[in-house]
């Protein structure tokens, strides 16, 4: 395949995997953050402290940990998902979970009480009150998801350890960049970074501007 063709292929794969990972992760991270925001105990604060510190946990270790689990001699080896795009997606979804929970928690912990109470007094079921909170903070949640996506697409450790950087199959932006750096192809690496930057930043700028238009 041509150089450009390969870059396009890698771009599509990276975006697909990281976007799926972000959406997957939001399925548990956002409800969890709401539940945590509801509780105001000392325990919750400690839990948030731990989650905050997990945000920057070395991705290579997350990758290693997942590798051990997914490896054929590991507990989930039977699933045979090691070195597949699916494994990267799962791994990234887990990786960004502390980030998504922490950021959503900050959003909800402020707004939680007043919007929740208001919805409830107007007759909302807990599920409806949850939904209200989420629509109320919709733009903020989009920002959180963008940050999560940016983190997912930019991380290396998980993609490398459970994806394997297999050409034409699990090779994504960051693993390509790492490979090019190890080849000494700094120019190509920087070029790839530039493309990544353009893609992520235009998407996110557009989403923010659009989001801004209908906010409040």
């Amino acid at each position: 395949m041509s150089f450009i063709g390969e870059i396009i292929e890698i771009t599509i794969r990276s975006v697909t995997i990281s976007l799926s990972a972000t959406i997957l992760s939001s399925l548990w991270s956002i409800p969890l953050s709401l539940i945590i925001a509801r509780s105001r105990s000392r325990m919750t604060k400690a839990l948030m402290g731990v989650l905050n510190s997990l945000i920057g946990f070395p991705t290579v270790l997350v990758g290693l940990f997942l590798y051990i689990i997914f490896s054929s001699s590991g507990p989930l080896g039977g699933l045979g998902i090691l070195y597949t795009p699916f494994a990267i997606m799962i791994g990234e979804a887990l990786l960004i979970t502390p980030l998504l929970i922490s950021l959503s928690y900050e959003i909800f912990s402020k707004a939680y009480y007043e919007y929740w109470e208001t919805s409830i007094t107007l007759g909302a079921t807990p599920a409806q009150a949850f939904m209200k909170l989420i629509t109320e903070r919709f733009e903020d949640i989009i920002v959180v998801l963008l940050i999560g996506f940016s983190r997912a697409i930019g991380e290396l450790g998980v993609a490398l350890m459970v994806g394997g950087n297999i050409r034409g199959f699990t090779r994504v932006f960051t693993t390509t960049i790492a490979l090019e750096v190890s080849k000494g192809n700094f120019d190509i690496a920087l070029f790839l970074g530039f493309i990544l930057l353009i893609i992520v930043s235009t998407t996110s700028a557009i989403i923010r501007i659009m989001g801004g238009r209908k906010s409040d």
Partner: protein
Amino acid sequence: MIELRDVWFSYNSGKPIIHGVNLRLSNEITIIIGPNGAGKTTLLKIIACLYKPDKGDVLIDGVNFWKLKSKEKLIMRRKIVYVHENPVLFKGTVMDNVTYPLIIRGHSLEKAREKALKLLKSLKLEYLTDRKRNELSAGEFQLVAIARAIISGAKYIVLDEPTSNLDLEHRIVLESIIREIVKSGKQVIIATHDRLFALKLNTEIIEINNGEIRSILHSKDLYQEIEEFIKKAGKKSLNS
């Protein structure tokens, strides 16, 4: 009917704010008055089943609310709406806000809008329909919050200082809407400092202080008090 039986309540900070209150709200309209910090808001939130008493029971139509299972609680909650003294409006337009209680009760968007528009008109607020919450004056904001509660069709409507930001005209409008509401068998409970409003509503007044019921009056009991006040103030003005 809502009934409180020997209700005690305290905030985290400790000392009880509500001291063994017994109360039967059987009038169409009940007004609660009392000085700042008397416990009016706290009491209303207990009545609206938002705060759980430390001790004592809250009975809604004879049912002990805090002994219900969460599913039944929901059904019961829909019988009561509460408007906070500093209400919050949701994002979106005034229309979105006012239709919300209908939408979550499963009404169609169309019907909800129709009803909302009618209510806004009767409150002389139709010009606000498409405004966002940060484009409202204080009084407009308060009226929209009240409209949003009233539209729910709930049996018990609990209003915390509903007139604090209203002009004379809107006070009269609100008064007449309240009169209309109670005609259909509903009950309105209001905490207020607005003695003129209390006087006009012409109903039973519960006076509380320091978390206790001090006396139960009637609007007409306020008449003398206010008239004297006016006389004094008026004389001063006229003399100046």
